[in-house]
């Protein structure tokens, strides 16, 4: 699976990242590096700090201490306009899709082009349709987000995330809440985007199967610490007990599996 070499330039460099919410320390000195052209999957259970780490990588949170470098820019030292400049070189597919409900799918995908380029409308529409074709949503540009299924919303979010041909693409829980078939098709989409457009991709997920399908390397977080970083084989063969516990999905099924969670809720309701 791995396509990036260890001597590829660094796209993201995190050093000793510590962050607090109020009194509580959420990340306890994270160190990680993402090389250009690789797919790095950040995974961990609920409350492990993976979403917080992602928000730091996007410049949406201020760290208590430490360093986050994205494409050579130190995010912790950038002001608002600096963050916006870096924002033009990255794409983000949010967990909820975060499509603007008042805009059609096509307008959503075109928004970064409208905001950051001086292309004429026709060119922007051509680019929008190309990206929708990549995510297999050609012909859906006139629909509103409310008319799309969960999987289609995620695909449209990917189309918007890559419309500016970003250097780095971030995806937050791309498979969450989707059935296995749609989930697998999104994994293929991520791999295609890397192969076709040569992007560096960072995926945050708690889905083991998805992670193993797409990852060049995996960063496994546990309670705000890095448990392990390595290739899929490294992680699979890790002799760390906690890593094996997470791989065996004990924690995941108990807390995060939607069916198990719903079944538990129904059960509690009956008991009450």
């Amino acid at each position: 699976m791995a396509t990036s070499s260890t001597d590829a330039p660094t796209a993201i460099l995190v050093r000793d990242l510590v962050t607090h919410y109020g009194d509580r320390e959420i990340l306890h000195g994270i160190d990680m590096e993402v090389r250009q052209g690789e797919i790095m999957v950040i995974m961990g259970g609920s409350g492990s700090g993976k979403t917080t780490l992602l928000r730091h990588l996007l410049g949406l949170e201020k760290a208590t201490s430490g360093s986050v470098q994205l494409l050579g820019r130190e995010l912790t030292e950038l002001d608002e306009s600096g963050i916006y400049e870096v924002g033009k070189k990255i794409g983000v597919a949010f967990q909820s899709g975060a499509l603007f409900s008042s805009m059609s799918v096509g307008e959503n995908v075109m928004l970064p082009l409208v905001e950051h380029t001086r292309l004429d409308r026709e060119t922007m529409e051509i680019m929008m349709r190309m990206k929708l074709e990549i995510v297999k949503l050609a012909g859906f540009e006139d629909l509103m987000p409310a008319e799309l299924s969960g999987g289609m919303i995620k695909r449209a979010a990917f189309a918007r995330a890559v419309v500016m041909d970003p250097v780095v693409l971030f995806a937050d829980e791309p498979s969450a809440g989707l059935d296995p078939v749609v989930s697998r098709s999104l994994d293929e989409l991520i791999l295609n985007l890397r192969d076709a457009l040569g992007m560096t991709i960072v995926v945050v997920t708690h889905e083991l199967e998805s992670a193993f399908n797409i990852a060049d390397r995996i960063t496994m977080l546990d309670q705000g610490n890095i448990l392990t970083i390595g290739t899929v084989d490294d992680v699979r063969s890790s002799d760390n007990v906690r890593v094996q516990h997470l791989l065996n999905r004990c924690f995941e099924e108990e807390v995060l599996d939607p069916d198990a969670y719903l079944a538990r809720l129904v059960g509690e309701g009956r008991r009450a």
Partner: protein
Amino acid sequence: MAPPETSGSAPLRFVEAVGRSTLRAVEQVGFGATLVGDSAYWLIMGRRRGQVVRPQPVFAEMMEIGIRAIPIVTMLAVTIGIMLAIQGIYQLSRFGAETQVVVGVAFGMTREFAPLITGILIAGRSGSALAARLGTMTINQEIDALEVMGVNPTRFLVVPSLVAMLIMLPALVVWADIVSLLGAGLYISAELGMNMSTYVDQTLELLSAGDLLHGLEKSLIFAVLITTIGIADGASVEGGAEGVGRVTTNAVVHGITAIVLTDMIFAFATTRS
């Protein structure tokens, strides 16, 4: 850092609750003021910073805030105008001065009731819609999406609403002035047998540009209040759909309260001789 919970007596807890609410209110006012400052900054500097405020969203907001509100504003303004005429004739009839109702209606509507009722209506209609939209967008990570796309949310979301409100609320007040005075005129004509053209002549003779401006100045202040309160309440959302419902209600309550208080202060400061 969350402040520690107090386990003191009931009066102490009451004082603490009042203190917390006051702090929250001051925080919201500060956020609203920052929002107005930021909006002015992006409106003026947006082009230079590569974040231009586009006319299309402003027109869309003007349509939603202004044009679509015309029927309800018309209905309420006419009703209030007629009510004022009914009460005025009833009160003045005790002194045999029914024809003086034109004075009360003309000044009352243009200086007070047209801006107040329009402001309250728009706070309930558009202020709540702004809060609901901002709340939903925050929960759906749409604000985060804007930021990581390099789009300033204030410039993209707040400025079009504020500009549209600043244009349409005074325009609606002028419309409310006209239709309420006409509604009152129709009632007065029928009740007192006054010729409609005489009523119109008397009204125009009585009113000065200052009276109209008095109402319009207030409507500009109301426009800023409705927008900033709607946005500030919407941005403070916590939780899911329930949280959106809560901030929407807050926006209406806060907006109407702010409008009524401001109206009183404005009248006190500018009308007292």
